[in-house]
């Protein structure tokens, strides 16, 4: 019984990581339809932000807290720059956007190698997050996993509130649902796109901060997580945050359960098979925006 509970907790914490790395994508891919393969490198930028900040702020706890907004801004600005320079020219060509941003991600990775060196680097975690909470002898919840879970839920909450109750959020949804109508209604769609991209990319930076608590950081860390992040959004469905949230936790739990009974590699394959099977049932993902359109 405790085994199941502890695997479930592992699953939830894997899901929280998935959710954090996919949350930004559910905006840029899910809402805007942009396939940004450099999203993983924005995560990397967030992680390196912690590394750099720790050279200035020696206290690990403070540096982590400061890193959250700074990483959001750094990754967000990178996103805005990318949107402005390349992506906005490619809105009609989603598949080409994928390849172009893959090129950008290669360049960013190499930049990271040139600046920080090819080997992985380690950041210091605050003491308060290195401990565990022991519930029973078998069931131990680690503080950093709990922190990430909290961070993920807070990010979802903040994003939901922004989308639902701010005028920016209303504009973002208007542009998603009918770009032309939004434009003639006086919404500056270009600026809304850029802001959406800023928030989505910024969330990648926050995810990067969280990832520093789980292991070393390096130039290729983005490539390792980007596919998982996309799968979450694909299975969650376009235009709905709740789809990504549910799928992230479901996949996390599935992976942890399969992993427990087999191996990590089989679990990865199992997740892939599960997603293909799931798309047989719901080809547009868990939730869809239904419209009457030819495409």
């Amino acid at each position, binding site marked *: 019984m405790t085994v199941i509970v502890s695997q479930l907790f592992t699953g939830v914490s894997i899901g929280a990581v998935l959710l954090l790395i996919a949350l930004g994508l559910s905006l840029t891919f899910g809402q805007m339809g942009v396939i940004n393969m450099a999203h993983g490198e924005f995560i990397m930028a967030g992680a390196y932000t912690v590394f750099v900040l720790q050279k200035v702020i020696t206290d690990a706890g403070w540096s982590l807290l400061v890193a959250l907004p700074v990483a959001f801004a750094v990754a967000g600005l990178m996103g805005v720059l990318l949107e402005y320079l390349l992506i906005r020219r490619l809105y009609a060509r989603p598949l080409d956007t994928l390849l172009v941003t893959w090129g950008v991600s290669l360049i960013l990775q190499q930049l990271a190698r040139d600046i920080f060196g090819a080997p992985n680097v380690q950041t210091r975690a605050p003491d308060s997050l290195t401990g565990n909470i022991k519930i029973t002898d078998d069931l131990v919840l680690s503080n950093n996993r709990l922190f990430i879970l909290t961070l993920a839920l807070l990010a979802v909450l903040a994003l939901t509130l922004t989308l639902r109750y701010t005028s920016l959020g209303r504009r973002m949804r208007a542009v998603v649902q009918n770009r032309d109508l939004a434009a003639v209604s006086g919404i500056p769609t270009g600026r809304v796109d850029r802001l959406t991209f800023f928030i989505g990319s910024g969330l990648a930076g926050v995810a990067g901060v969280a990832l520093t608590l789980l292991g070393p950081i390096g130039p290729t860390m983005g490539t390792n997580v980007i596919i998982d992040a996309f799968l979450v959004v694909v299975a969650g469905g376009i235009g709905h945050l709740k789809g990504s949230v549910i799928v992230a936790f479901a996949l996390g739990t599935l992976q942890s359960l399969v992993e427990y009974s087999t191996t990590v590699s089989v679990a990865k394959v199992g997740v892939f098979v599960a997603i293909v099977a799931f798309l047989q049932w719901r080809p547009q993902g868990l939730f869809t925006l*239904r*419209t*009457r359109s*030819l495409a």
Partner: protein
Amino acid sequence: MSGLVVRDLRVVFDGFVAVDGVDLEVAPGDIRFLIGPNGAGKTTLVDAVTGLARATGSVRFGDDELLGRPVHRIARMGVGRTFQTATVFEELTVLQNLDIAAGAGRGVLTMLRRRRSVPAAVSSALETIGLADLRDRPAGALAHGQKQWLEIGMLLVQDVKLLLLDEPVAGMSHDERDATGELLRVVSADRTVVVIEHDMDFMRSFANTVTVLHAGKVLSEGTVAQVQADPAVQQVYLGVG
């Protein structure tokens, strides 16, 4: 020749009822116009008949039930349609567009070989729609009206028995409209035609019968004169009253 019989058709999008229990009978060889204000459910009705929108109720064409079948099966039963914005294969030539439309029944070996000659149906359609001189031009380079003609030409070579045309004369000049109307008369000799149209002059000139839809329901039905005289129609659609 077969007619179209629609019974209690309903289409619901996420709780919004777009088509709300429509009954419709189009006799074989009829030219039926579907009119109604925006949002009346005209295009959705055609979407349901052609398998694009999921619907409940019954749609029979001849002896065949259409509902529940995939789009390409319905097309092979002889049901063809056009779209509000002319949809042709822009990078293919006029000839290739027509050849593809003519070829849904081709076998594997024919498909894997190159086209050696122009099929008779295709060359006669090229003449009919007046694009014979432009047959090697990419369809994307055609003028707006020419694309709509090409689309009708594709329906002709596809040899459908039921044509569903969504605003076929939108953006056409007066001469082009008349020519299109004449074409509809000719093809309806051995086909059933349903036209969605906002152009009232075009409707008066070429409609045999008219169905008025409003808010997903049939408001009125009959000849052009009967429909125009219907007070309900005047109230909601023609704005008289």
